[in-house]
């Protein structure tokens, strides 16, 4: 399979579309089926595709361990940050409506949901990728 031009090219072509689709699924989560988890998993599949076609070093080079860790943490921080912000506006945890009424911006609630979903998506993407990468190349690096 190594050096197979067809596979490599097809994969290379597919990856952006997969990632775009993933973003669509994430953003769509506020008003229909979809959401952070599904989108994140789809996003992670793009890396899996890269892994299959180009091998581990290539993926690691693009998306290294520390980046994965940063993304995983970042997503949760977005999620929790939004939730805690709601508390600051004297709502309950994740009560977006509180911010909406406090600031008076219409449809802010939907936007907040998208932000939260994006946070979830980022974390899921990072974690899924790291699970696959760690199983594929267990011995190569120092454990956490």
């Amino acid at each position: 399979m190594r050096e197979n031009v067809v596979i490599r090219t097809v994969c290379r072509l597919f990856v952006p579309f997969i990632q775009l689709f993933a973003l669509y699924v994430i953003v769509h989560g506020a008003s229909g089926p979809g959401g952070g988890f599904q989108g994140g998993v789809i996003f992670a599949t793009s890396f899996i595709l890269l892994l299959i076609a180009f091998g581990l070093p290539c993926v690691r080079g693009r998306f290294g361990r520390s980046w994965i860790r940063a993304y995983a943490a970042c997503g949760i921080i977005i999620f929790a940050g939004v939730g805690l912000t709601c508390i600051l506006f004297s709502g309950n945890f994740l009560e977006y409506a509180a911010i909406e009424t406090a600031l008076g911006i219409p449809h802010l609630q939907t936007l907040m949901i998208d932000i939260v979903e994006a946070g979830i998506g980022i974390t899921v993407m990072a974690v899924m990728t790291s699970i696959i990468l760690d199983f594929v190349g267990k011995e190569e690096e120092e454990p956490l």
Partner: protein
Amino acid sequence: MENLLAFIATRYIYIMTIILMMIGLYALIAKKNLVKKVIGLNIFQTAIFLFYISFSDVDGGTAPIFLPDGVSATYVNPIPHVLILTAIVVGLAITAVALAIVVGIYEEYQVTGEDGLQEVMKRQ
């Protein structure tokens, strides 16, 4: 007899779920290979997921999507779907941990089967 047929005809989905669940349990208990056990675990969990999805179904229901004002439709109960999404995440995490442990066992003992494991333990 007719009752039974009617029962099967209306509840076949539950029966299928239970069969699937039993397959999973069988693999969990009877298979010696640790990886197959993990697969059995996944089958078991999937059966439960299907069970949830099947009971959320409404005859003739559509996907629960926001519709434009004035349009109404029967849609399936979305809550079990959401629950199962969470359960899938949980299942995924369990699978990941289980596989990591199996890899650890393999690295330690160079076996993936329970028989081999018992032998190695005896030798120690």
